[in-house]
């Protein structure tokens, strides 16, 4: 399996990369880790005429904290996310999720930016970014703009990213210290996409939920921010009846495909089970 012919570009700055993309429009694709794009090119399901390798742009790497926001460069790899002490302390759900993506070799190369920008509903980071209310910084010929993860995904592989733009960084508001969190992913084997997965971040005040954010992976053609489920849980004591209502609200917004991972009805139910498990684990981890 050999990809079609393309012209290879390796810019050393974002401005240079954007200029190349602007020149070639739809015929150019940025290359980050390549572990989604290169397999598609090998299958000839993607055949960009110009490939713009972002691997030479040092400014796209790294994790930094500025006040109550953590900014992660788009070319930061899953392996680097897993190894980051800052993220382990402030946003441990990122490490938990990254460890469930693909396998060790792929995590050395696969990037956060590629994972969220590609628009593949199977990817895990998009729902997590919606759960965390992250914003994506998109850089184009006219400069930067920010789009909320919750508003970025339009359909499978269709996003708010324009052909001449690059997703350059991800900005995440740091959740309150002592927050509870969990990413629960049902998959058939290591390296598989989720049959269904749920990300939850919450805070507890005494026995009451202060805030709760819920998002779902791979149960529709986009990641799903389950705002109603989060609203139902907020202010509750996580009693069985409320949890049941929230799970039903999360299940109600799913529209999974029937495929090798199971029939649609099953995957919807599994989304509910993932929400319930993530909720239990997040509540257990929260300090009140």
């Amino acid at each position, binding site marked *: 399996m050999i990809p079609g012919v393309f*012209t290879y570009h390796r810019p050393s700055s974002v401005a240079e990369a954007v200029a190349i993309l602007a020149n070639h429009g739809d015929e150019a694709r940025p*290359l980050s880790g390549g572990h989604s794009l290169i*397999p598609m090119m090998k299958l000839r399901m993607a055949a960009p005429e110009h490939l713009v390798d972002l691997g030479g742009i040092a400014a796209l790497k790294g994790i930094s904290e500025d006040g109550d926001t953590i900014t992660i460069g788009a070319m930061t790899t899953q*392996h680097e996310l897993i190894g980051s002490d800052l993220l382990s302390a402030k946003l441990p759900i990122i490490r938990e999720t990254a460890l469930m993506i693909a396998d060790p*070799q*792929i995590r050395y*190369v696969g990037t956060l930016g590629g994972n969220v920008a590609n628009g593949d509903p199977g990817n895990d980071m998009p729902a997590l970014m919606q759960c965390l209310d992250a914003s994506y910084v998109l850089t184009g010929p006219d400069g930067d703009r920010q789009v909320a993860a919750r508003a970025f995904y339009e359909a499978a592989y269709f996003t708010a990213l324009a052909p001449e733009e690059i997703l350059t960084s991800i900005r995440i508001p740091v959740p309150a210290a002592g927050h509870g969190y969990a990413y629960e992913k049902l998959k058939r084997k290591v390296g598989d996409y989720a049959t269904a997965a749920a990300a939850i971040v919450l805070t507890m005040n005494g026995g009451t939920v202060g805030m709760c954010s819920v998002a779902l992976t791979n149960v529709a053609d986009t990641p799903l921010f389950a705002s109603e489920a989060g609203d139902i849980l907020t202010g509750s004591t996580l009693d069985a009846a409320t949890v049941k209502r929230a799970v039903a609200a999360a299940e109600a917004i799913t529209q999974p495909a029937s495929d090798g991972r199971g029939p649609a009805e099953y995957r919807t139910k599994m989304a509910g089970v993932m929400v319930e498990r993530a909720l239990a684990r997040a509540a257990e981890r929260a300090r009140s």
Partner: protein
Amino acid sequence: MSDIEQIPVTMTVNGKKVQRFVEARTLLIHFLREELNLTGPHIGCETSHCGACTVEMNGMSVKSCTLFAVQANAAELTTIEGMANADGTLSALQEGFRQMHGLQCGFCTPGMITRAHRLLQENPNPTEDEIRMGISGNLCRCTGYQNIVKAIQYAAAKLNGTEFQEAAE
């Protein structure tokens, strides 16, 4: 197809500097096998699942079927051909795979050993679970993994200067 642009690449492979011209679409696995005649890294699934093509690049285990050779420009690479000790004797991992029968058909072995090498660099004393997760990107269809895990435990013990104790079954 001589009109396809040829791009110069330079890399250090198993300690030797190499320089070639490649098409941009040349995958690293094809570059290693066909240009450098390093046929240790294998082409298995070609879809980044099986890990038979695993090589070491700049201190990372990578699947060379899912990288372009141009992306490895200026990189340091080690393949299974570079895993033996400098004096030609078997490395602790190679010895472990031999002693513990960590292979049957041998197809996955170059990838397994290359991956296990990086695992032990990062975690010199892994638990059995950590070994299994550490090699979860490498498929073996013969051994059921039991003896591969033992081989890696053998190598870890040898590198740590401790006695390898095979767990009772």
